[in-house]
Each structure stands twice: as structure tokens, then as C-alpha cells.
């Protein structure tokens, strides 16, 4: 099974060839956006953070930005700094530069304001874009692929159709020697014992339980019932009654392979096979964390329908709800609702998703990519100062 990839200097392959513009801090968002507008085929990741942060919270922001830059779908990076923020732009450039890709830094204070910084940034971006456009993708084995599996805007069809179908596709990728990352700690609450039985070692199972306990402590600290926040009002309208029910429907999306490891939000994926990444269920924070961990693409099941995309990774939208597919065809890539009508077997539905993965990994644009959905969000674990 072959796909098409761009060779990176560190031996990895990307299925896209993005020029990424990273603001180190919210203060450089506008300059970053202006550069993106001036130079076609660039993508910026404006965000709210990068300053007034300390400790593990600061590290998490840094790791998410660095990981997004290191993602193999990114060919080159332009970092836009204000000049006085907490996230050190040169440290960020050094970290991303370990992959061997070109990284440039501009500093708004040093450039002498927004207009001069936009000009300098656009000049650099144009030059880097030219270099990337000279590259050609080459045939590579599908087994190099690392995919994230995610569900969002779930309804009852997610648990009985789209998630188990995605599980079939996950198993097909693992059989090719590939890598699958499942996440959403919130949404394994009530189902962690099922996943723990599938962990390759007691240490991995312990880590999984630790992630869940940490999350549940945070909910207890808020003094509230999760229900209403997760399951969300839309989940409840769709027939999901409790977090346990939602979780049990969620976990089938990662198939049946053993879980070989569990790692922190946005940390690099440690190896091949099926992994768990700690993350909230929040769609954008989760997908952003997966992209920062190094996945090439994300398969995203939805019952209610959601437009979510991501800046550097294609997001394939899969639904088992026929009405949603028909109403939101703008956003949906794969329809597996035939499972519920008895006209599509789970195996056939999994193959449909697998084919979409192979085509997307060979250059076919997802609907989220065509529509320019590049939502990006960084998980916070501390207060702003």
C-alpha cells in the first residue's frame, strides 16, 4: 500500500508541504495573519497565549508550538515574535530546527513595528515558499503513517456506527505497520477499564488510570457534575445520557490493537503502534495536541456534524448519521450511515475510511482543507498571571 510524501531532512515524511507561520504570543497574531494573507499557501496559527505563563503551563504552550512546527507536514517555519514575551522565539527556532527544516525568526520590536515586520516576514515567507514549491512528493509505504482518531459532536450513531467503523480502519493501518493515536481522557472516563485490559503492560495501564484520576480530580475541584459540559447539550439531545455512555461509544474508534504506550499532551509519539495521548475531549485542543505530537492526519467521527479542521494536518470527517451527511455535506468526507440501514457491513465501512485515508495521504484535499478550516487551540493547565 503506497501513499505520497515529502522527504524531510530527519528521515521522516510529510503528506503535506506547509509553510507554517507561528506567532510566539498573542501580540504577534495580526502581523502573522497579514503575512499569511500576502503570501499564498502559507498557514498561520494565531492563539491566545505565549505570555504571562509559568511552569508546566508555559512548557505546554511551548511544546504545542514546537510540535506543530516539527510536524512532518510542515516544510518550513517562520516564527513571529513580539520581542518581550515568555515563549522564547530563538529557543523555539532551535527546537523546531532539530528536524533540519528551515526556520526563520522575525521580531516586531526589532523590525520597528507592524508594517516593517509584515514586510520582512512576507519577504522571508515568499522565499521559503519558493523552496518548498520546488519539492516533489514521492511514493512511500502507507505504514509510515501516524493518524489521530477523534470523535466530536457525538450522537448515538457515533458509538454504534462511525466509531467502530473507524476502529476497523485503525486496525488496517496498524496491520500495515503504522501508528494510531487515540486521546480524549475525559471521554474514556467510565471505559478506562476496557482500554486498560488492552494495554501491552501494567505500566501503560497504570499511566492510563493516572491520566483519568488527574482529570476527575480537576472536575471534583470545579465542584460540578460533568454532565452538561461533557456530554455536551448537543450530545444529550442526540441521545447520550452520561459520560460513561459516551466514553464506551468513543473507545471503539481505535480498533482492537494493544495499547503500547501513553504519553502527555503534545509530546512526541514515542514509536509505532497504538498509543494513548492525554488530552481534554475539547475538539480543537485535542486535534492541536495530536498534530503537535506528530500525526500526519486525523480521522474525526461526528454524529451531530462539525466543520473542525486543523492548520497542518488534514482532518477527515466521518459520520454514521445519514441526516447529518445530507445536511452538512459541505463538511463531511465519508458517509457510513449505511451500517444502520443494514446495507453496509462494519468491515466495508472501515474499508471506505481506509481508502479515504490513503487518498488523503496521497494529496486529496479534505473538505475542511478546501474550506480553509484551520482551527487551533492550546490546552492550558495554569492561570494567566
Amino acid at each position, binding site marked *: 500500500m503506497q501513499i505520497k510524501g515529502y522527504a524531510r531532512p530527519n528521515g521522516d515524511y510529510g503528506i503535506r508541504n506547509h509553510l507554517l507561520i507561528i506567532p510566539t504570543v498573542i501580540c504577534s497574531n495580526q502581523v502573522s495573519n497579514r503575512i499569511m494573507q500576502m503570501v499564498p499557501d502559507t498557514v498561520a496559527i494565531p492563539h491566545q497565549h505565549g505570555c504571562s505563563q509559568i511552569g508546566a503551563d508555559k512548557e505546554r504552550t511551548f511544546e504545542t508550538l514546537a510540535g506543530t512546527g516539527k510536524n512532518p507536514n510542515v516544510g518550513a517555519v517562520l516564527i513571529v515574535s513580539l520581542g518581550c514575551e515568555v515563549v522564547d522565539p530563538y529557543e523555539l527556532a532551535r527546537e523546531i530546527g532539530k528536524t533540519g527544516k528551515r526556520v526563520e525568526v522575525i521580531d516586531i520590536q526589532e523590525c520597528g513595528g507592524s508594517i516593517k515586520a509584515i514586510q520582512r516576514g512576507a519577504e522571508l515567507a515568499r522565499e521559503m515558499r519558493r523552496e518548498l514549491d520546488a519539492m516533489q512528493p514521492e511514493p512511500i509505504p502507507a505504514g509510515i503513517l501516524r493518524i489521530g482518531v477523534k470523535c466530536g459532536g457525538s450522537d*448515538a450513531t457515533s458509538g454504534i456506527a462511525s466509531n467502530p467503523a473507524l476502529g476497523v480502519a485503525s486496525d488496517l493501518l496498524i496491520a500495515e505497520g503504522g501508528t494510531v493515536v487515540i486521546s480524549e481522557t475525559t471521554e474514556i472516563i*467510565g471505559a478506562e477499564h476496557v482500554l486498560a485490559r488492552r494495554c501491552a503492560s501494567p505500566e501503560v495501564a497504570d499511566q492510563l488510570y493516572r491520566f483519568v484520576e488527574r482529570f*476527575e480530580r480537576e472536575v471534583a475541584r470545579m465542584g460540578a*457534575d460533568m*454532565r452538561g459540559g*461533557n456530554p455536551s447539550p448537543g450530545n*444529550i439531545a442526540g441521545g447520550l445520557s452520561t459520560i*460513561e455512555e459516551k466514553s464506551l461509544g468513543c473507545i471503539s474508534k481505535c480498533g482492537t490493537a494493544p495499547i503500547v504506550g501513553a504519553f502527555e499532551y503534545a509530546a512526541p509519539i514515542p514509536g509505532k503502534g497504538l498509543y494513548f495521548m492525554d488530552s481534554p475531549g475539547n475538539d480543537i485542543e485535542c486535534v492541536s495536541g495530536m498534530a503537535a505530537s506528530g500525526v500526519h492526519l486525523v480521522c474525526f467521527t461526528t454524529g451531530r456534524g462539525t466543520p473542525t479542521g486543523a492548520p497542518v494536518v488534514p482532518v477527515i470527517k466521518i459520520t454514521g448519521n445519514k441526516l447529518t451527511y445530507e445536511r452538512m455535506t459541505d463538511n463531511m468526507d465519508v458517509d457510513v450511515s449505511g*451500517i444502520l440501514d443494514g446495507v453496509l457491513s*462494519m468491515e466495508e465501512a472501515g474499508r471506505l475510511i481506509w481508502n479515504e485515508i490513503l487518498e488523503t495521504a496521497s494529496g486529496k484535499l479534505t473538505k475542511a482543507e478546501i474550506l480553509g478550516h484551520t482551527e487551533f487551540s492550546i490546552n492550558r493547565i495554569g492561570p494567566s498571571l
Partner: protein
Amino acid sequence: MAKSIEAGADALVVDAQDHVATALKDLKAGSRIRYRRGTEIEQLALLQDIPFGHKVAIRAIEAGEEVRKYGEVIGRATAHIRPGEHVHVHNIEGIRGRGDQAAEGGSHDAN
């Protein structure tokens, strides 16, 4: 998980241990539905409307009893539920993620 779902079934029971079936279409109170459970098709009279994707009890559930779907516990009944009744947030509650109970001094149930 069934490999495929028979065309024409109104609802699906995911696991043989489950108390509930999931509606595969909007179902009306008073109607007699056909639901799939493993390889069997069984019938049930509905006491209430069950919207698409929502759950219907396929057997009586006592107040306080743990409710199963996917063969696992999805919550606890807060009232007696009769076969054919709608099972949702009005008559079952989550056991996990209950910060509200922790705030009231309730014990943390790790099941």
C-alpha cells in the same frame, strides 16, 4: 458488535447484557417495534416516543440499579423504569465525573 444490522430493524441492542436498545429511527409511543439483539429479532411495545439515537428500556430497571449498554455500566437509574420507556437524563444519572457530589461531601466512586 454485530457485523451488520438487519435492514428494517427499528432499534439495536449492542450487547446481550444490555438493559437498553438504541432507536435507529424516530419511534412512536404505542407502536410495537422490532429490535435486534445479537442474531435475534425481538419485539417490544413502546410506552413513550423514542427519538432517533435515544434509548428504550427492553426490561424493567429498578431505581438505583446500574444500567448497561455496550455490556458495560453507563450510569444508575434514578427511578423505576418499565420496559418500553425512554431511558435518558430524566431517569438515569452518571456515576463518574460527579464533582457536584464531591462538593456535597459524597464519596468518590471509582467504578
